[in-house]
């Protein structure tokens, strides 16, 4: 089963970076891809993300998301084609040969362009967040966030939300199988679909609530919320981190220059 956004234990370049460096990386990359609208620039960024992933030994993990991205990109492009037409017409979603409705729903350069920009941005954001999360041990993240003064309860909440994604996936699968064995068939039509959700979601949520009770007691009984703490194996910013941040700074300045020249 694909493990969504879970830490992958390896010893690569990204794993050795300090969480701060990686947070700076995510922020810089996100800002750039949201501001930029140039297709070439965004494509180069995607290539850069993949190169970075490959360098850190995480290309395989990142490419697992390709299916999701492909589906989302088709959705984005179809929506923008329908809602934001503009510029030259390249063709029609319904071929002109079809009687009566043929030639409607034009594929325009403007619509296509916006759809592609959204897709690329989406890809870059997903890759950047994923690289950060799968290469950072939660306890390093806890240390880093505590240092910047974030309350421990919020940090634990964030970590637990991520940690339990695969647990819920597996549990959902088991519930689904148990109901299938009782002849459950997912309904048809809109109301059928909604109604058929109950046999899966109710056990999933009830079990999760019971589990959260034990989880809460465990957190207290292990003293995670005491605040007092000895930091062992703590990460410190090293030359590698400063180098990456310098690269990010240069890229940022370069990006602003390109922006002022209206090239991105």
């Amino acid at each position, binding site marked *: 089963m694909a*493990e969504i956004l*879970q*830490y992958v*234990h390896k010893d690569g370049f990204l794993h050795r970076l300090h969480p701060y460096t990686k947070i700076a990386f995510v922020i810089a990359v996100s800002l750039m891809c949201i501001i930029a609208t140039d297709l070439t620039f965004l494509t180069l960024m995607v290539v850069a993300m993949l190169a970075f992933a490959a360098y850190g030994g995480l290309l395989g993990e990142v490419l697992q998301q390709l299916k999701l991205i492909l589906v989302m990109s088709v959705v984005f492009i179809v929506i923008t084609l329908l809602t934001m037409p503009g510029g030259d017409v390249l063709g029609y979603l319904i071929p002109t040969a079809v009687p009566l409705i043929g030639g409607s729903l034009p594929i325009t350069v403007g619509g296509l362009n916006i759809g592609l920009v959204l897709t690329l941005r989406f890809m870059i954001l997903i890759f950047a967040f994923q690289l950060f999360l799968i290469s950072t*041990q*939660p*306890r390093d993240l*806890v240390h880093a966030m505590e240092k910047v003064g974030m309350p421990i309860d919020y940090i*634990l909440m964030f*970590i*637990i939300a991520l*940690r339990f994604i*695969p*647990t819920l996936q*597996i*549990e959902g699968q*088991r*519930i689904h*199988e*148990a*109901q*299938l*064995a*009782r*002849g*459950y*068939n997912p309904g048809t039509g809109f109301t059928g679909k909604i109604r058929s959700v*109950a*046999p899966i979601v*109710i*056990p999933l949520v*009830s*079990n999760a609530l*019971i*589990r*959260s009770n*034990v*989880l809460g*007691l*465990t*957190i*207290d*009984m*292990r*003293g*995670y*919320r*005491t605040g*007092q*703490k*000895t*930091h*062992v*194996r703590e990460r410190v910013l090293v030359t590698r981190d400063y180098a990456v941040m310098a690269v990010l700074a240069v890229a940022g300045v370069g990006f602003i220059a390109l922006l002022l020249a209206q090239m991105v």
Partner: protein
Amino acid sequence: MIELKNVSYTYPHTAHPALDRISLTLPKGRCIMVTGPSGAGKTSLCLAASGILHHEFGGKKEGTVSIGGRGVAEYKSLSDLARNVGVVFDDPEAQMIFTTVEEEILSALEHRGLSADVIEERLAGIIRIAYLDELKDRSPHNLSGGQKQRVALAATLALGNDILILDEPTSELDDHATKRIATILADLKAQGKTLLLVEHKYGYFRDMVDTLVVMENGTITASGVPDEVLKDSRLRGMILPDFSTVAKAAPVKSDAAPVVTVSHLSYSYGDVEALHDLILTIRKGEFVAVVGENGSGKTTLVKHFNRLLSPTSGDVVVNGKNTKNCSIAELARDVGLVFQNPDHMFFADSVRDEIAFGLKNLGIENGSTAIDAALSEAGLSGSADLYPRWLSRGERQRLAIACVVAMQPGVIVLDEPTTGLDGYEARLVIDMLRRLQEKGHTIIVITHNREIATHCADRVITMENGRIVADTRGA
């Protein structure tokens, strides 16, 4: 070390007390094992003895609890209590918060005000005690239930407390994993730890238990040296169940109609082969036990009977129909499958509605006769209007079986139906299965329990690494 005097407790919004005038003393370095039916108040006792009940729960509380000579009210908070007592709960999944085993233990060690050197030293020691060396870098979803439970225990040990309270630490575990936990606990006791252990599996822990306590309906009904307590035949039946008195059916004739025929079945999860070239015929009316270690392919095999899984190669034929040509819903009429955890199926507002769900799915009209029959079969006639999740674990297990029985499949498959049950509850389940066999159903049970396999089944199939290594018929 822990002393409870006349402790009574009633949960908010309930009428009956979960604990009723409990008095118990756990001296330093000793081990008390608490046992009893599900719903008897054992978990509430763990919560009371650890002070959690006092600090975290509302409801009506009476009596006094002291830990290490201090009353629980004198402790400022749970974090304060956590410096004196460690608690391991029954759900190992909920006790893993971080993403690798080492990280989990290390994070618990960091909150003890120790120096970094001492922490590293203790970490190494705990990993050794809990046999976790090879698993250090694994993530929670790549661990078995037994391994997770060892991690939860290790993270609790990291706190360095002398008192440990364990609430059914082996309930979901197989024979091998239970033995491992028992070995670890025996070592801890030898080191001088004080243990309060809630367990059903007395047999695994008999050498380390100083006092055996039996709880029923919120009260202690017996307490003393294990040998003395076990002299009472009723209690003995609960603690050390004897399945040798289960009356077996007359042997099924070798020419009885085959209901499940497996020919050259292989199945792979991705690159991992889970089943290898299995050949098996199960005949109408048989009571078959499937045994084997975790990961030997037992559940994978039975999931083929109702097509939750389809063969990578080979065929599975159920009642003359090749499963390849049937849908799961169609096969639900022929094969009923009850999974290990009953809580994976309950969603209705009442026991009756829960059973009706399967019947509606099969399009059976006027199901109320079938529902009533299934309820009485499961001994739940009086609970028809209750909310399923309010039932005790033993009752929920029987309800899960009733849900499948009402659909009247010829073959009933059960995955670990006696997990987490005491001797009497397990016996109720087994007797129910025997009655169903008498009525002509074919019963297939996956079990870790060798006693059940040898005494209740006509035929025992042993699996190992995706292969059937033994297939024996009882006398």
